[in-house]
């Protein structure tokens, strides 16, 4: 009896806390049971709820769409919306909050907005909101503060027209901006301080999007459908789930358990071994975008970043030899179970395939070839002097390189081991190290490393973002975003800027420049492409069907990752169908 009491007290406390703290956070306490039809009070009817996981790694902490690295899953996309959507597979911009946008002359861009859109507090969405949002670039703590260096002015011509005047028209970057950045309600945000604006929690998010905040707790975020959403009427788009419950990731293996059980419908985790569980015979009802390798769409390129300021990586010949020495096929096969594809020598993602100049890659491309690697090394004067099979520097000093990957990133840790193994076979002595992520960032940004793996550049509307990542100049003391290898080439950087100033409609012009860039890249090899990291995504079809796939009608990106809803993922919700009710 006494023991039972002991047990009861903390449990009571737990229950109290769980009920107490979540309902007090609930700004919009909508009685779930009453709207959910016949469901038991306090639970979301399974047939109307979409469970997702794979984006959020800690308790939801803010709903501020400007904090694009930490806002609760879906804040941008479900609640706050962008002017355009971009479909990376079709390379098409779809007007979203905007009705249209066009360049009136070389430096003037005019945006027409849709009418009849309202914020969830009932106020209409107008040109003022767009102007307010764009002008946030004046705040130093804004993620797009650089926009103000080439945007001269933004003015509301009338309620639904905005005119932008640029001092320098970076067409590519602007096209990227308009689909990437969410529009905020000026009437609610105008009075906020800089602190509140760029880094406030914004815990009562008011947006224009198809979903509204319902509640959150330690391990989940719940959205409920916004019944008055404009898209239903104007676009005939209707997201099917009434509730979206995003579950905070414990770890990837837990996510695998959940999606196998069918408690999670869509998992955007990297789930090792999942390729073995696909197909009808496995009985799990698990699906991926492709039903054969690489199973996933490609989201970004994983690179082997060489520190180009250090010997011997400062020698293009050495880097070329290294590129030939990495067996990416084996990595894709063994570490990833064929869930990734080895990268093209240019490193350009499959969606950018049309920019690959096949003549250049035929001439300068590379593939795994240890013999070739050895001959390049020998030709360049790297000799094996002490008979251990490992080459030495030209001055005779030993070459001993360290490849760092963050501790706990298991797939990369295994991949790094394989890179070291296959490089050794070609005579390059590489050992692996797994420092903690923060210390790796520190060494990487300050240029104190030999080799690291990086995949910071996600897919986008333009290869400009990608070349900006590879060739970015000038080299700063801290390289915070891109060109971690500190490769310095003024000519290439000029080309990147030319690319930025090419209109997005001028495909031939873009191709001309990217071809030149590819020649430089493949000759100098400033960074070595390894494989395409997947847009990890696996779905269980027991509650929802018609998931995105290469063959079906739903071909949108199957993901909840930050920055991807506006790459068409939001339309995936429209295509879902409830599975035939089975009781």
């Amino acid at each position, binding site marked *: 009896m006494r*023991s039972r009491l*002991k*047990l009861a*007290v*903390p*449990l009571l*406390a*737990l*229950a109290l*806390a*769980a*009920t107490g*703290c979540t*309902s007090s956070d609930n700004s919009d306490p909508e009685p779930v049971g009453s709207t959910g039809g016949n469901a038991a009070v*306090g*639970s*979301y009817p*399974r047939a109307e709820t979409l469970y997702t996981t794979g984006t959020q*790694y*800690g*308790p939801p*902490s*803010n709903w501020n769409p400007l904090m*694009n*690295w*930490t806002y609760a899953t879906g804040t941008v996309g479900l609640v706050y919306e962008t002017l355009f959507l971009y479909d990376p597979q079709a390379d098409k911009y779809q007007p979203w909050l905007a009705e249209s946008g066009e360049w009136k002359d070389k430096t003037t861009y005019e945006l027409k907005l849709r009418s009849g859109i309202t914020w969830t507090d009932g106020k209409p969405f107008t040109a003022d909101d767009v102007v307010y949002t764009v002008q946030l670039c004046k705040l*130093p*703590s*804004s*993620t*797009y*503060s650089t926009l103000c260096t080439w945007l001269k002015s933004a003015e509301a011509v009338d309620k639904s027209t905005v005119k932008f005047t640029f001092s320098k028209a970076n067409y590519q970057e602007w096209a990227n901006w308009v689909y*990437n950045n969410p529009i905020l309600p000026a009437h609610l945000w105008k009075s906020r301080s800089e*602190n509140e604006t760029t*880094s406030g*929690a914004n815990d009562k998010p008011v947006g224009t999007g198809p979903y509204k905040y319902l*509640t959150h*707790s*330690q*391990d*989940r975020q719940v959205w409920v459908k916004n019944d008055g959403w404009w898209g239903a009427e104007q676009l005939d788009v209707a997201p099917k789930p009434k509730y979206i419950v995003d579950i*905070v990731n*414990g770890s990837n293996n*837990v996510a695998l358990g*959940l999606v196998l*059980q069918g*408690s999670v419908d869509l998992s955007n985790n990297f789930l090792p071994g999942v390729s073995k569980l696909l197909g009808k015979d496995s009985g799990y009802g698990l699906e991926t975008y492709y039903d054969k390798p690489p199973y996933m769409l490609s989201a970004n390129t994983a690179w082997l970043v060489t520190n180009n300021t250090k010997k011997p990586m400062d020698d293009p010949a050495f880097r070329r030899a290294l590129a030939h020495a990495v067996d990416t096929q084996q990595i894709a096969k063994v570490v990833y179970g064929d869930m990734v594809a080895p990268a093209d020598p240019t490193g350009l993602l499959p969606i950018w395939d049309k920019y690959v100049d096949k003549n250049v890659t035929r001439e300068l491309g590379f593939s795994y070839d240890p013999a070739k690697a050895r001959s390049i090394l020998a030709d360049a004067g790297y000799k094996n002097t002490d008979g251990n099979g490992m080459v030495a520097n030209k001055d005779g000093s030993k070459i001993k390189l360290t490849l760092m990957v963050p501790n706990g990133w298991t797939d990369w840790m295994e991949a790094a081991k394989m890179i070291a193994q296959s490089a050794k076979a070609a005579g390059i002595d590489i050992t692996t190290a797994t420092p*903690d*992520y*923060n*210390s790796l*960032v*520190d060494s990487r*940004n300050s240029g104190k490393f030999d080799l690291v793996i990086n995949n*910071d550049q996600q897919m986008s509307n333009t290869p400009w973002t990608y070349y900006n990542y590879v060739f970015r100049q000038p080299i700063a003391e*801290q390289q*915070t*975003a*891109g060109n971690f290898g500190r490769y310095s080439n003024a000519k290439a950087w000029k080309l990147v800027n030319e690319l930025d100033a090419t209109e997005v409609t001028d495909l031939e012009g873009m191709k001309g420049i990217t071809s030149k860039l590819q020649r430089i890249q493949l000759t100098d090899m400033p960074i070595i492409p390894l494989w395409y990291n997947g847009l990890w995504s696996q779905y269980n079809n027991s509650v929802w069907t018609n998931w995105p796939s290469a063959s079906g009608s739903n071909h949108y990106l199957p993901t909840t990752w*930050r920055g991807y809803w506006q790459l068409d993922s939001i339309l995936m919700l429209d295509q879902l169908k409830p599975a035939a009710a089975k009781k």
Partner: protein
Amino acid sequence: MRRYFTRKFLIYLLTFFFAVSIDWAIPRFMPGDPVQSMLSRAALHPESATAMYDYYSNSFGLDVPIWRQYLNFWGSLLQGDLGTSVWLYPQPVSSVIANAIPYTLALMLPAILLSWWAGNSFGAFAARRKWLDNTALPFAYILNSMPYMWLGILLAWLLGSVLDIFPLSGGYGYGLQPEWSLEFIGSLLKHWFLPFASLFLVGFGGWAIGMRNLIIYELESDYSHYLTALGAPQRLIRRYAFRNAMLPQVTGLALQIGVIVAGALVTEIVFSYPGLGNLILQAINNEDYFLLQGAFLFIIIGVLIANFVIDMVYVLVDPRTRTGMRGATS
């Protein structure tokens, strides 16, 4: 008596001061820079990054000399301000911890107390009872030698994955909203059970063995033999033995709390239980000084209070310490 308690209290205060200072210092000696790491996760233009870096360093108070940071830390701590989490920006650390702590406490308190109570009772019962000694105690040894997480993994695998009786993660069903209903509380219990069971079982084994050995000591001591010679009933002797054997077990509890807490944190990680364990791990991964400090602070306070209480209990239970005033843990 009063002097004794005052002195004890002062020592605890001093311990608190040093322990908290160490916990403040340790994360700061980690390589890397929390703001850099935070921004490395953001999608932004390199030039914007510099401005943001300055902005956030300032807002975390990381742009002042380290001694200043230390003074500021105590200053705000005394006002009850634990700072703002870097990783869960802009949530205050206190609220992040307050949301997690109920889960951790609900797991740890019953696991510690129940395993201690049950282990001791069982150990006392099994001592010098041949058949139990030979059948049940080997299990206790095995349980006690298991790494917490491995037992967790086994339970998760058998009862969660294979038999599908218990859920593998979360604090309560993902489809539920917190409320006072049988369904919700049932779900809460179901999610709580496996992590609790792994903590309980490991602890149970340890206490049972300890108690069994202590009882045998006592039963073989002079006073027991004397009592037996006098013809006292075995029940009575066992009761005396039990009382005496309790004292080292109380001390043992005080000494073990730190280890048990560590075990609980790892167990939470295995089961993705939304308590402090996952928070601490993530705070380390994200180099979140403030969250880490806050979580440590809580653990320190918890362990100190537990030690203090045990100290007091010991003095009350054991008359000898009252005269010598040596206390259990001194």
